[in-house]
């Protein structure tokens, strides 16, 4: 019909995340911009890397992370964020349960923090601080840090998307 142009391959913005180590993700995370404003509404979540798999060699880490992410997916649905606070959504698709609440803090264009130190949460959860960076419009890379006496230690990387 016409002189159609073949599509150049489109690289997946999520591709660098699959099976990546915490070190690699930390570098990537630091390079990503802060969201200009907190997102609003329900965001679908997906685990990307877990602390427990980090000591494994690369190939095993990738396989274990993939399996764990698949196991987590039906349980952890994502997060709901609205008006300066939010919560994690669990299990039933239609009406998920909210557990793991957080306050959303951001100063101007600064870091977008998810602070789990809220009274509704059990004590262990209150030691968690999350942060979101923008991977693409409406798509975020998140990191959960456990606050210990020695500072903050990452335990989970995840994506959130509308």
């Amino acid at each position: 019909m016409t002189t159609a142009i073949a599509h150049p391959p489109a690289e997946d913005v999520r591709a660098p995340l699959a099976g990546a180590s915490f070190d690699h993700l930390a570098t990537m995370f630091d390079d990503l911009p802060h969201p200009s404003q907190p997102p609003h509404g329900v965001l679908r979540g997906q685990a990307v890397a877990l602390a427990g798999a980090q000591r494994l060699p690369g190939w095993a880490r990738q396989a274990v992370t993939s399996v764990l992410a698949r196991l987590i997916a039906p349980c952890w649905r994502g997060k709901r964020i609205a008006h300066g606070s939010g919560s994690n959504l669990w299990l039933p698709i239609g009406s998920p349960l909210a557990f793991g609440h957080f306050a959303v803090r951001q100063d101007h264009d600064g870091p977008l923090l998810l602070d789990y130190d809220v009274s509704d949460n059990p004590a262990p959860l209150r030691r968690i601080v999350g942060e979101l960076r923008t991977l693409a419009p409406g798509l975020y890379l998140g990191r959960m840090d456990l606050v210990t006496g020695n500072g903050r230690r990452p335990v989970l990387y995840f994506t959130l998307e509308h």
Partner: protein
Amino acid sequence: MAATNSDAQRWDAVVVGTGFGGAVVGARLAERGLRVLMLERGPWWGPLGAEHPVGPHRPFPRGALGLRKLLRGVHLSRGSRSLELTLHRDGLYELHVFERLICAVASGVGGGSLVYTNMQVQPEDDFFDAFPQEITAQEMQPHYQAVREMLRPMPVPEPPVKAQAFARALARSGAGEANYPELAVAFAEPRSTGGGPGHAPSGRREPRPGYAGTCIIGCEDRSKLTLDSTYVALAERNGAQIRALSVVKAIGRSADGYEVRVEDLAGGATFVVRAPRLVLSAGTLGTLRLLLAARDRHRTLPKLPAAVGRGFTPNGDMAAFVHRASGDVQSDVGPSISAYVQARNREGRHRHLVAEVGLPLAALPLPHALRRRLSHSLVLFGMGRDGIADEARIDGRGQLRIAADRLDDPELFDELQQAMQRIGEGYAPRRVLTHLPYTRSSPSLISVHPLGGAAIASDPAHGAVDHTGEVFGHPGLFVADGSLYPTPPGLPPSMTIAALAERIATFVATSSRPTAVPR
């Protein structure tokens, strides 16, 4: 600004959608030498798509098995329910089920042109009273002419039996005179040497292009001048890249313009494209969803005008079914619509129209006996200048919320219903079922022409975009589709969408690189 990925591709313009807005803008920008990327969530369809050397293509939904691809999915946002159910990512139609309104839209390269009824109707001059002063009926003439040159509309050369039956029904019911609209259909000469309709000069009987009643669900004989064969083809000839089965999930700002997150439905990848010019032509509901999400949900363009979402209208759409007319109708022979009747208000302005719509029986897997019976039945479809100006919103799950219903303008819909009842009875049928698919007095509506919500206006207090199609306060961000309508035409809207897109394309092409996209 989001991540700078190595895979990001740079374009002079990214156009979202390939319907009557996007196809036109994409073609004209490419003609001017701009590097244009056109993103389309649906596949290439039909025989034309099969010949296209690049991109996913699908045969039109036909037969018991093929018809499963008739429905792409359903967006449901009613009461406490809010969900998106995708049945086939490469399906043809999509339903949006709101509180008291159901909208049906199409998906594929060519957008609504794949399934519309080919009517190319220009509104009367007073319609442009609602537009900014720069846009008048006279000023729009060259743009309508440009559309005419591409789509070559003409009235049906010889009214088919169903159009003649419509004229007789009008005469019996005293509902007015039949008009024969210009159709974007490549008609064959109905009487060529060799004698009789459909005979080629050789005397050998040939199919009669333009008479296939199935074209409302995709045109197999290519007689319908759809956008994939006209404007999109022009865009490709001039170097534009068309990515089918690529759905835009979100938009945001980038260092020098805008960026778009795209999901490749064929390969599963998520990629980002950037351009100084972004044209949203995803159809009214698609464009509103992207704009409202960017403003209220993703917060990537939080300073989009407050007027985004306001002024939504279902174009006064209403349908009726005439069951088993007493005379010959041949419902499945001829263009889907080949005749209509117009009603005016006291001031002589267009109020509404009612058109006869044949049934695409040959495309449906029906027993022969039922098909023969249904060939005596038809649909009457009405459109009117309703007074509805609802506000579309986006909910926490990303679904549009629209509260429009019949009670927003009961007078118009009562008039339309009565007109359709009267015309239907003119066929002396077994039954006339008005206000389909609902009961007669239901407050719910159905629309295949959702319009408005990003209205063209003189200032941001009254609309979302200026007369050039550029979103107020967002240089380089344009809208070119049915969402531009500031008021319903009560007519098939496609020709005016295309003409406005012709006009908007000139401004997109000459727009300077945006330097300050507001945060």
